[in-house]
């Protein structure tokens, strides 16, 4: 137990408004369970359908990104299929929820993601919606070129509140953090 200070972690997470954390091996079977829990149990009344949907859908896209694209693969995830290691955090502040993820990623894939993230930065909400619809039409049948659609969808859902941070690890790998804000509806935020 040396080095693990739960008090410090508890305190700093409290400061950040953290209400959910998962760190470890993500798989489809697990994200279905965690997603259900987030959607059904994490929200305190009055529940707003669009906020719950926003947090849930961003959680699913981020968790599926980890299962598909984490550079730390899990060989035999629960329920079969792909699996990868990462962290997912949901936090709440007065005016928003933030769903965040972090995982190791191959630098070649990272370059593609960063290119897309840069293309979206600063776009207004209707521009992001238009971009998502264009990308949806243009996407190849398998719908997944380097987490493309998911990024556009999350940027649209957050109305421009998607940010990221990259920590270089070595020549092949980096760690990417994605933060996706879901704004609260006004009367709820001021409650």
């Amino acid at each position: 137990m040396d080095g693990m200070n739960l008090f410090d972690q508890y305190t700093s997470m409290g400061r950040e408004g953290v209400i959910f954390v998962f760190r470890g091996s993500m798989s489809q079977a697990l994200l279905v369970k965690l997603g259900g829990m987030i959607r059904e149990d994490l929200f305190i009344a009055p529940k707003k359908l669009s906020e719950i949907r926003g947090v849930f859908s961003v959680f699913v896209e981020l968790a599926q990104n980890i299962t598909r694209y984490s550079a730390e693969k899990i060989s035999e995830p629960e329920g079969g299929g792909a699996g990868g290691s990462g962290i997912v955090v949901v936090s709440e502040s007065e005016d928003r929820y933030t769903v965040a993820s972090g995982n190791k990623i191959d630098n070649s894939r990272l370059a593609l993601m960063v290119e897309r993230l840069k293309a979206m930065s600063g776009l207004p909400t209707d521009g992001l919606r238009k971009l998502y619809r264009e990308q949806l039409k243009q996407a190849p049948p398998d719908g997944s070129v380097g987490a493309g659609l998911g990024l556009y969808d999350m940027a649209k859902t957050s109305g421009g509140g998607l940010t990221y941070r990259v920590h270089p690890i070595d020549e092949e790998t980096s760690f990417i953090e994605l933060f996706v804000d879901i704004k609260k509806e006004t009367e709820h935020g001021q409650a």
Partner: protein
Amino acid sequence: MDRLKIDGTKYTLEIDLDPAVGRLQFRGESYPENARAFFAPVFTWLDGYLATGPAKVDLELSLDYLNTSSTKCLLDILEVFEKFRSSGGPVNVTWFYAKDDSDTLLMGQDLSEDTGLPIQFVER
């Protein structure tokens, strides 16, 4: 043409494609790991069915949440029907959405506009 029935799960749609009455129903939520693989039998079935020249097709969609790769599959399904319709095929599309669920209504409206397929929206 055999009827295609797929039971729904927490993260895959309930699908009932009944050629006898021309009623094709999709219901529930979809966020499987591999949406394309899940919908593959649906595309195959639709190709076969629409090629038989059905007299009347009612497509009923009652969807709650789709991840991005499932949304892409749905767009492709609607494009199949738009192709059928624009070559004279008789198809009615109804999109059911839960009361107050403006997100799902908007998704349907966007998909209708993006594919050119007319959709009737009904609150359920």
